[in-house]
């Protein structure tokens, strides 16, 4: 039995196993969807073979058709799909089979691990039953036998360590645990082909690494062929035999992983590979800061708690969303606040705007203590502090024209005369690179990127001193993100505004921020010039986070075991302790009782850790 709580494996190339006969042969696959008479092609002319015991990764951005291809291989496409071509599973043509026969083969010969385990598990059925259902789907097992086998599977996947999770419900488990349940369901009938559709994209960085390793281990143990689908080329190419790159439904490149990684033949593949490597080139040189200038925004000891929604019979839980957060922002400076979901970044953004005011701590903006201001006074400060939101479509009133949206702050804050408003609005549209003719349109007629630019124009309407971008680019696709990031680069130099970027995408903010702060579960772990934080992270969490996006200085660097398993292995952290200590293997008693303060370790670089990493430490 595999001990799955051991350290994650090193990123050496997988040992070559005996490659067997092809179990999955796709040739000339074409998938299109009939949307009310209009036919949209999703996949065109896809060809690949997957041999027993080998691993293939399909990589592409969203909309590239990778998920559609996988679902076609299992016959799980919606009713309006038009499929042509050939899919042979174990030598037998799948597409010509009737639904009844396809049903027989699903789960037994070919199985799938879905992307978002929270949505792919039935919320009202205990997970054990769902696994048992998969076990007994095609065999006449008694319920007791199925249950026994299900418990074995849960044990195999490390889910039965402390207590039996058989009758637990999906919402009671963490994301990583749910994903393991999904994997258990998929391997229950020991299929020959296992498809993993973006198995890690909904997980946090720490768990992603474990899950990929787990899949590879199981693949070896059960001698399956693994088809791994992902948008992250770097991540998967390091652990699979061959790679297939897709873009807009077409096969761009296909070959052994090492070849594609080192010698990509097409420009697109090259851009995917180099995007990660050249991150360092994007990093900003830290700006020479004007010394002794009064900072624009000073946050000190900001803390905020939520009392969770109480339902009958549940425990009332206290969520410490922000824990003693302190930082400074100078005029015209750009600060990025990065962290994963649940790190408190959005709460921090809301707290800065006093919506709602944080429970403790002080925020001083332009010399005013914000918590002392109420009503009209606070509104006056909002003139100088604006926000751009995550979802571009719901940040604009769908019934209002673009001009009305941009002019709203001018009207409310009374900072522009009515006769001059339209001219200023046009000027703003020009500033964000949109044609003036868009001003009379409604948001529903615009694309996501365009809406976001309108939102930026609206934020700049009152000439604020600070613009807060709360995950402003997370809902956009890769190309639009790129353009919007360029726009913000331009605006940074043109306007004298300070920008505060909140994001979970470290790659994206690296190129547009002067300084970066890393947050974890409500605490700031590390803050400093972007270059320093990215290239020489000192906090164990920052280091793990940066590794997860495969930002390595040298390729092939051993992954240092900073984290040790999906479950916290130490005693629970007291509320006032370092939030990373349960996962950290450098943690000691002190870390668990008292949160370390931010200590300066270099030029404007602060770390909140009692045992910060030395920059050149490797193992």
């Amino acid at each position, binding site marked *: 039995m595999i001990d799955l709580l051991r350290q994650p494996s090193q990123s050496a190339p997988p040992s070559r196993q005996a490659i067997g006969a092809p179990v999955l042969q796709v040739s000339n696959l074409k998938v299109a969807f009939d949307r009310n008479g209009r036919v949209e092609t999703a996949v065109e002319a896809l060809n690949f073979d997957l041999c027993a015991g080998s691993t293939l990764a399909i990589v592409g951005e969203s909309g590239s058709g990778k998920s559609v291809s996988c679902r076609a291989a299992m016959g799980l496409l919606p009713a309006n799909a038009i499929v042509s071509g050939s899919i042979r599973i174990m030598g037998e043509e799948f597409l010509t089979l009737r639904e009844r026969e396809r049903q027989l083969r699903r789960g037994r010969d070919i199985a799938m691990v879905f992307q978002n385990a929270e949505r792919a598990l039935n919320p009202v*059925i205990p997970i054990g039953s769902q696994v048992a259902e998969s076990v007994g789907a095609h065999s006449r097992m008694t319920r007791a036998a199925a249950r026994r086998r299900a418990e074995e599977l849960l044990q195999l996947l490390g889910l039965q360590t402390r207590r039996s999770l058989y009758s637990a419900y999906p919402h009671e488990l963490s994301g990583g645990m749910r994903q393991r349940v999904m994997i258990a369901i998929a391997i229950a009938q020991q299929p020959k082909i296992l498809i993993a559709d973006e198995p890690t994209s909904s997980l946090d960085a720490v768990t992603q690494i474990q899950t990929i390793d787990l899949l590879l281990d199981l693949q070896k143990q059960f001698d399956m062929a693994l088809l791994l689908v992902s948008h992250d080329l770097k991540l998967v190419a390091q652990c699979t035999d061959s790679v297939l790159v897709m873009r807009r439904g077409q096969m761009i490149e296909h070959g052994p992983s090492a070849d594609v990684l080192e010698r990509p033949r097409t420009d697109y593949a090259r851009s995917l590979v180099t995007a990660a490597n050249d991150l360092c080139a994007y990093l900003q040189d830290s700006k020479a800061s004007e010394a002794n200038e009064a900072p624009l925004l000073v946050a000190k000891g900001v803390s905020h708690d939520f009392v969770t929604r109480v339902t009958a019979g549940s425990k009332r*839980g*206290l969520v410490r969303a922000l824990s003693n957060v302190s930082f400074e922002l100078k005029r015209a400076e750009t600060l990025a606040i990065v962290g994963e*979901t649940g790190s408190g970044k959005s709460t921090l953004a809301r707290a800065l705007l006093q919506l709602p005011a944080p429970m403790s701590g002080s925020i001083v903006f332009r010399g005013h203590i914000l918590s002392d201001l109420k009503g009209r006074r606070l509104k006056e400060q909002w003139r100088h502090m604006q926000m751009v939101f995550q979802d571009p479509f719901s940040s604009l009133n769908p019934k209002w024209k673009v001009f009305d949206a941009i002019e709203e702050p001018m009207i409310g804050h009374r900072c522009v005369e009515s006769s001059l408003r339209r001219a200023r609005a046009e000027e703003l549209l020009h500033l964000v690179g949109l044609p003036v003719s868009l001003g009379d349109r409604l948001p529903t007629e615009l694309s996501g990127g365009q809406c976001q630019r309108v939102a930026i124009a609206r934020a700049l309407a009152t000439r604020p001193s600070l613009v807060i971008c709360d995950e402003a680019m997370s809902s956009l696709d890769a190309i639009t993100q790129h353009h919007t990031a360029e726009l913000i680069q331009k605006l940074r130099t043109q306007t004298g505004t300070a920008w505060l970027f909140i994001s979970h995408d470290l790659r994206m903010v690296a190129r547009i921020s002067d300084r970066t702060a890393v947050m974890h579960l409500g605490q700031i772990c590390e803050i400093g010039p972007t270059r320093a934080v990215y290239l020489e992270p000192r906090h164990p969490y920052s280091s793990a986070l940066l590794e997860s996006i495969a930002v390595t200085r040298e390729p092939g660097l051993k992954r240092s075991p900073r984290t040790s398993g999906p479950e916290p292995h130490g005693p629970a952290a007291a509320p006032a302790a370092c939030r990373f200590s349960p996962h950290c293997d450098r943690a000691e008693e002190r870390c668990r009782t008292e949160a370390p303060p931010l200590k300066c370790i270099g030029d404007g670089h602060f770390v909140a850790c009692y045992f910060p990493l030395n920059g050149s430490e490797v193992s």
Partner: protein
Amino acid sequence: MIYSKSGLWTDAAALSSPRLELCRAILRRLVIVGTVLIGVSALTFFVLGILPGNAAQTLFGQDATPEQLARIEAELNLDRPILERYNLWAVEALHGNLGHSLASHQSATKLLADRLPVTIELVVLALLLSLILAVPAALVASRWPARFIDRSVAAINITTLSIPSYVFALILVLMFSVHLRLLPAIGFVPLRESVVRNLESMTLPALAIALPLFGLYTRFLRGDLLEQLLHHDYIVAAKAKGIGSLRILVRHALPNSISGLLTVIGVNFGALIGGTVIIEQIFALPGIGKLLLESVHARDVPIVQAIVVTLAAISTGVNLAIDALYGTIDPRTRNASF
């Protein structure tokens, strides 16, 4: 320790225990129910008490003698201010005394107690019938979506829910009693006497109320099931295991629809009760609805009051029960503890 997807929760010992929370929730609900009942009874009282003079006159006609008028006034305490009257009534009500009929002097409580079982039987039968028809229809419709059977079911649904229960009642009587002579049109037989004949006499009334509700429930259920089939990943995941469509519908989709269905039932419960008033009138069933109409026409204010408050209380009680049921049915609202 409570663990969630980002480990955001702190120790469970933070604020309180599950038992305390449960007590708090029950207490909160009782307070709300109490407030609603007080409000309901007060509102009824004030509305009905607006024109007290008519009560006496209608009962005894134009020739009401001064003594008779005086007696009514004394019974209803009409000489006291209205707030005091409400107070007196409320205190009596809490003791179980809901007043007396002006005409027959019978205790309102006794009258209600006699008639309530009939109405309850009618409501229960109607609800059962509608669900027995609705669930299979919805399952069949969503098993073969967009085929003929689905379109027919949808068409039947919207037609049945558009036809009011009294129209159904009369059409059913026309068909089954007059032409086919299968079932009796009027004539209620109590359960004690004969179960079969009781059910016979209740079939048409229950069916009349059940048919519009059947349309409503099926339409909701079919929509909910289809929405799950189209948009929810756990259905695709279940299919990927190799399970058949019917099992997916029944084992995976239907349990998720139950709480939605409960909401629809709760929201329309008022219509269910209102329906009994007319239906009891048409089929001459000795239930509360018929009593209400008789009392309204006779201006027997205390009885009307008692009935209205009781029916509102029942409606509130049912909605409360549904709220409580959510807690047991949907595991997400239960204790989260891993």
